[in-house]
């Protein structure tokens, strides 16, 4: 064959390949008829009339919705798998696709409510019993049983690294078809809260094929698995007609959860009407987005904090007056208004005031540069040589301020802090680095102040944040050698306390001590901003979940 002919054939083949490639996955958007091939349940027991989970309103009795709409939700993480027994996709399938559920749920006020379990009680120092809801069906029609729940959680204990640390579950016994006993490694009063988080999602054993390989996630949620394009990171779920919670009264028949990690790209997708719900737009674009009449911009304060860690291994930071001065010097309201574009909040204490165990009756270290300068003078950090900069023990003091790149607000706040410290005569240098480098610098004692961020409700309990930052045996406190014996005692009492009011009182007392010490102090409250299509209804933010929940009742207007 002549070379010319071969070149022509190759050109044609290349063109054909490209056209085939352009065909894409053919995912449609907009409205489309609902799927009707829902598998017939093995057990056709009608849903019970027990209360629906927190994210489901009372079943609508007026009319069965047409369910011909597609709700498209953009997420920030990349979804690479759906096997929750190996820690994949739990949050997305629980909170956005609503395919999986947990034994309990938390409402916006952090009250524990029934979901797949209807009753629970602590039966001993290290034992709990949970009673499952009757008549709940998995999406393949098999019933929810104690064996299925035990299987799922046991699998997680083998493969999910955080499972044991967070749940403290040592073993699970099946008492009868609908009753389970949980044995914990430590005395805990918080298991019902913990199991409401993404760590407690329940998936059916039939999610796996007979040869033990993962097939697809089969849960009990209002929507069931339809398809997952791992290469494009797009998960699709369709309405489940046999949902135990009844009809949520939505016309959304399909939910599409798509990964768009870049914040600017997510905003553009929202502006162009390609997604209906998205979180976290760049601060710089908020003003423009608010002008768009096709969009609805809503800002919420979350339970995540921006906190300042003062390195008390440094001699000058061992003086509480210096630590407090460094807090009084920061104008948080200006940071919120000017840099964070109103996304977030100024804390009245350590935690967001909406949390029932938050103590707001503490000194919030409101902006007071005169007081900051006075405290520094008293601590002996003064400008002795008249060059405009303060010295410590006769030597110029230059604070090293560090933060991570991961949270977009951190670099902004840190740079503002540098300006505020300059105003009170303190020289400082900022270092904005990757998180693992922050850890290295902390371990090597190469910084003075570390601005970081932490969720106060990753495990939604009153004691969690105390254990995370303030407990002397926790990694954060140990790194800098922070120990307050009274605070430690309060934390352990809070962890073990069954009575909710006493538990909250102990948590508040511990927070008051922590605030006085000013070693780990909340500088700002983290904000979430949602850019939703103006057609979205029934969406609300709950601070009690890990990421953000899109309730079963969320709908799209015509």
């Amino acid at each position, binding site marked *: 064959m002549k*070379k010319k002919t071969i070149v022509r054939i190759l050109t044609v083949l*290349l*063109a054909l*390949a*490209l056209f085939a*490639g*352009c*065909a*894409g*996955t*053919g*995912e449609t*958007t907009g409205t489309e008829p609902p799927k009707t091939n829902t598998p017939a349940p093995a057990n056709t027991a009608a849903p019970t009339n027990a209360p629906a989970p927190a994210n489901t309103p009372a079943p609508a009795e007026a009319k069965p919705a047409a369910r011909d709409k597609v709700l498209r939700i953009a997420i920030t993480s*990349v979804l*690479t*798998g759906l096997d929750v027994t*190996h*820690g*994949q996709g739990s949050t997305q399938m629980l909170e956005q696709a609503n395919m999986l559920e947990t034994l309990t749920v938390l409402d916006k006020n952090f009250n524990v409510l029934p979901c797949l379990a209807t009753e629970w009680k602590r039966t001993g120092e290290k034992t709990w019993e949970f009673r499952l809801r009757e008549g709940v069906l998995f999406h393949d029609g098999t019933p929810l049983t104690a064996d299925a729940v035990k299987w799922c959680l046991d699998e997680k204990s083998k493969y999910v*690294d*955080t499972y044991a*640390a967070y749940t403290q579950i040592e073993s699970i016994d099946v008492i009868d078809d609908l009753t389970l006993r949980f044995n914990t490694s430590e005395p805990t009063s918080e298991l019902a809260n913990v199991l409401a988080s993404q760590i407690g999602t329940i998936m059916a054993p039939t999610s796996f094929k007979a040869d033990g390989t993962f097939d697809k996630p089969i849960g009990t949620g209002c929507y069931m698995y339809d398809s997952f394009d*791992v*290469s*494009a*990171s*797009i998960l699709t779920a369709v309405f489940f007609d046999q949902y135990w919670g009844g009809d949520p009264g939505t016309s959304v028949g399909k939910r599409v959860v*798509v*990964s*768009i*990690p*870049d914040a*600017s*790209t*997510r905003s*553009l*997708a929202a502006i*162009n009407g*390609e997604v209906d719900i998205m979180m976290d737009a760049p601060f710089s674009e908020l003003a423009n987005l608010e002008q768009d009449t096709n969009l609805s911009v809503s800002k919420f304060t979350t339970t995540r904090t921006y906190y300042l860690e003062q390195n008390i291994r440094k001699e000058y930071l061992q003086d509480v007056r210096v630590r407090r001065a460094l807090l009084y010097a920061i104008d948080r309201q200006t940071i919120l208004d000017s840099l964070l574009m109103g996304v977030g909040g100024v804390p009245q204490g350590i935690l967001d005031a909406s949390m029932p165990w938050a103590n707001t009756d503490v000194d919030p270290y409101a902006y007071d540069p005169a007081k900051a300068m006075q405290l520094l003078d008293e601590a002996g950090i003064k400008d002795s040589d008249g060059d405009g900069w303060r010295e410590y023990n006769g030597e110029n003091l230059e604070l090293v301020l560090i933060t991570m790149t*991961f949270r977009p607000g951190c670099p902004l706040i840190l740079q503002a802090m540098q300006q505020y410290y300059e105003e009170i005569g303190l020289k400082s240098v900022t270092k904005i*680095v*990757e*998180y*693992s*480098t*922050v*850890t*290295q*610098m902390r371990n090597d004692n190469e910084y003075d102040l570390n601005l*970081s*961020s*932490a*969720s106060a409700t*990753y495990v939604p309990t009153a004691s969690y944040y105390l*254990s*995370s930052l303030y407990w002397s045996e*926790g*990694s*954060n406190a*140990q790194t800098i050698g922070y120990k307050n014996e009274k605070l430690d005692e309060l934390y352990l009492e809070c962890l073990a306390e069954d009575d909710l009011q006493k538990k909250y009182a102990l948590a508040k007392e511990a927070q008051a001590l922590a605030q006085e010490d000013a070693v780990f102090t909340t500088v700002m409250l983290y904000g979430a901003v949602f850019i939703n299509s103006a057609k979205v209804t029934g969406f609300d933010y709950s601070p009690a979940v890990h990421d953000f929940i899109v309730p079963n009742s969320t709908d799209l207007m015509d």
Partner: protein
Amino acid sequence: MLKYIVKRLLVMLLVLWAVSTMTYFMVHVTPGDAATAIVFNLTGGTNMDEELIERINKRFDLDKPVYVQYFNWLLGVFRMDFGISYRYNMPVMDMIKARLPNTARLGLTAVFLSALIGIPLGVLSALRQNRLLDHTSRVATLFIGSVPGFLSGLVLIIIFSLKLKWFPTSGMKTAGSIVLPAVTLALGMVATTTRMMRTGMLDVLRQDFMVVAKAKGIRRSSMLVSHAFRNALPSIVTVIGLQIGHILGGSVLVETIFAWPGLGSLLNDAVSNRDTPMLEGCVILITFGYTAINLLVDVVYAWLDPRVKYTEG
């Protein structure tokens, strides 16, 4: 020729080993450790539990000396096992298999577009040397090629997605999703393709055989296609080959802007999260792609131009 190819294949293996080894140790000398990064991802930085870090260290053998980790990894590579991604807890090969076709689809479309615009424009530019069309095409391609990808990508999104509503802004949900990222990538390559094509054509047009062909009275169109264009083609094959090789690793920015789930965004993610197995998997694949395409280009070059002979020297 066969000896030459075998020799090049051996060199390719050496390059693969050198690049992957350098990358491996460079990751290890940068500040921070992988286990901390993994726990940060798992918990959102909320609870850097020491026990959890220990457990991660054990599970991925990160508590062993670096050289032991390296040899274990190298043994795995010989078995085509690139390990488990720290970040995704999935086999690296599975992730790459899922993403590579997306990058290939994007890259080949971009190269195709670049060739489609660049080659005719280069030929026309050469035929109209130092005339208005030549000057215009040179200035225009230089300008377009100088605009960074993130800017041209955003401009295209604003015009064709937000204003005209012709294409989606991101993702790969619909057939039209590939257009804007492919055009953005192609714009960066058009200038090179056009310039190379123009130079190649001008070189050929000045050759004696073209004068002879003209003297023989061969039709202009036939002279240009059969003699000039064919002889100028090898230089453009080299450029296109290099562009294909570059696209495997060079589309990071475009894939990020357009949320295109390809290899570039996977690599970017691996670097940010100290996901060494994933980083190594991507680096080996990109290096292999680059060297293999270079070899292929050399072979094609010899095939297109019989004067080219590869010898052992």
